[in-house]
């Protein structure tokens, strides 16, 4: 069946579109395309509807820049959340990871990336101006928690933001990094152990 199809036919078009998705190569795209072909029509229609809906209805929250159907988003509209705490994350999935812990009840700001010289990403490519706008007086924010990943790009972004935020006289903190819970010290790498010692706490 595949050998008779041409570049313009629907199967090839679907394979081409699927293979544009991250982590999907030609082989996987072909497998997925044939799965959709064999699936009941309702399943394919439901997938198509979901794809269209997500593009038509999901936008950025004008306050926190997270993806949302309603603006402002659920978290920005929740009066039970603490306005004084603002947690800055790189990507929407990072926000979900923090939310899953149920241990943070403040507000969020999503940057949509980190500073990356190897990808040519500078501060204007991120939601930095929107973050700074939220801190301008009379902002209720008293502490900004920088929760970017503890890798080179995440650290550089946190350092850069900390300087910009401190200019407003607002307390800046960084999420802790070090040994993972349940991990063995014996197998940890030198940089992680050094960091864990550096940010040790009193008991």
């Amino acid at each position, binding site marked *: 069946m595949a050998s008779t199809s041409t570049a313009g036919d629907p199967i090839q078009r679907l394979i081409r579109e699927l293979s544009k998705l991250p982590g999907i190569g030609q082989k996987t795209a072909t497998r997925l395309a044939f799965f959709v072909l064999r699936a009941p029509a309702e399943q394919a229609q439901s997938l198509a509807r979901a794809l269209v809906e997500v593009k038509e209805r999901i936008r950025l929250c004008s306050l926190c820049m997270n993806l949302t159907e309603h603006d402002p988003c659920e978290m920005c509209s929740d009066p039970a959340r603490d306005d004084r705490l603002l947690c800055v994350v790189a990507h929407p999935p990072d926000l979900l990871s923090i939310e899953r812990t149920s241990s943070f009840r403040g507000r969020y700001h999503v940057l949509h990336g980190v500073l990356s010289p190897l990808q040519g990403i500078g501060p204007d*490519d991120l939601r930095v101006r929107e973050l700074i706008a939220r801190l301008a007086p009379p902002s209720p924010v008293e502490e900004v928690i920088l929760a970017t990943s503890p890798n080179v790009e995440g*650290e550089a972004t946190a350092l850069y933001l900390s300087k910009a935020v401190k200019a407003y006289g607002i307390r800046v903190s960084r999420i802790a990094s070090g040994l993972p819970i349940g991990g063995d010290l014996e197998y940890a790498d030198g*940089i992680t152990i050094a960091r864990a010692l550096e940010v040790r706490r009193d008991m």
Partner: protein
Amino acid sequence: MRKRSGPTEATPCVVLRVVDYGDADRIVTLLSAAHGKISALAKGARSSRRRFGAALGAFGFGEALLEERRGQDLWSLADLSVTRGFPNLPLELSRFGHAAYACELCLHLCPPHVPEPTVLRLLVALLDYLDGLPLSDKPSPLALRIFELQLLLAVGLGLQLYDCAACGGPVPAADLVPLDVRRGGVLCESCFLGPIPEQLGPQGGGLPASLRDLLAQLETRPLAPESLADLSVSPAAHNLLRMLLQSLIQQHLGHALRAVEFIAKMNAFSLEPPG
């Protein structure tokens, strides 16, 4: 049964680039001592139970445990342990940009699977220099010029300074010698027809003796703080040097580097000061 992977071997390396792949994996491009520039799949690198620790980020220097996957360009990264960390690189954005620029140059100028011990030493020396600077100091632009020159030389793309780039004959010392960047260096009288231009532009022209000597000197200068401290180059000479090297690099790459774009964006970006 046919074995799908080769033996595991350990080699020192610097991580040049890290790209997320699939749900929890990463593809890393390494500059390794044993195999030069290679790409390897680091399975599970993004999960919190990952085996790679802090080494698996850009600029990480350590010992990689690699496994060749038969019939595939992509190796498998079994382990990466840190030998030398560069914790100060992200603390100041100009050195961060410089380090990324150096890694990106290696990424594009080093051919794959060709051992480049000189380039690896050079890259580690630059990262060491940048990491060791006091936080209040900006990196010396001459460090990057030395890196560029010595990298180009190591990968066989250096400028010919004393032999004619066209015929290989000697080009004797003179106040001005003809330089043609596209042909790869200086030219002798028989290969360069016409009067020697007095000006030096991105594609070449008349190369002054002082700049020729400086280029030769920087090609062998160690990339270390004490060596840089001894070096004095006028702003005009440095501008010419940078113009020539950028032109040469651009000619070999054929595209702009993202780290250069990043540095330009950082220089152009400013936030309104708090009222």
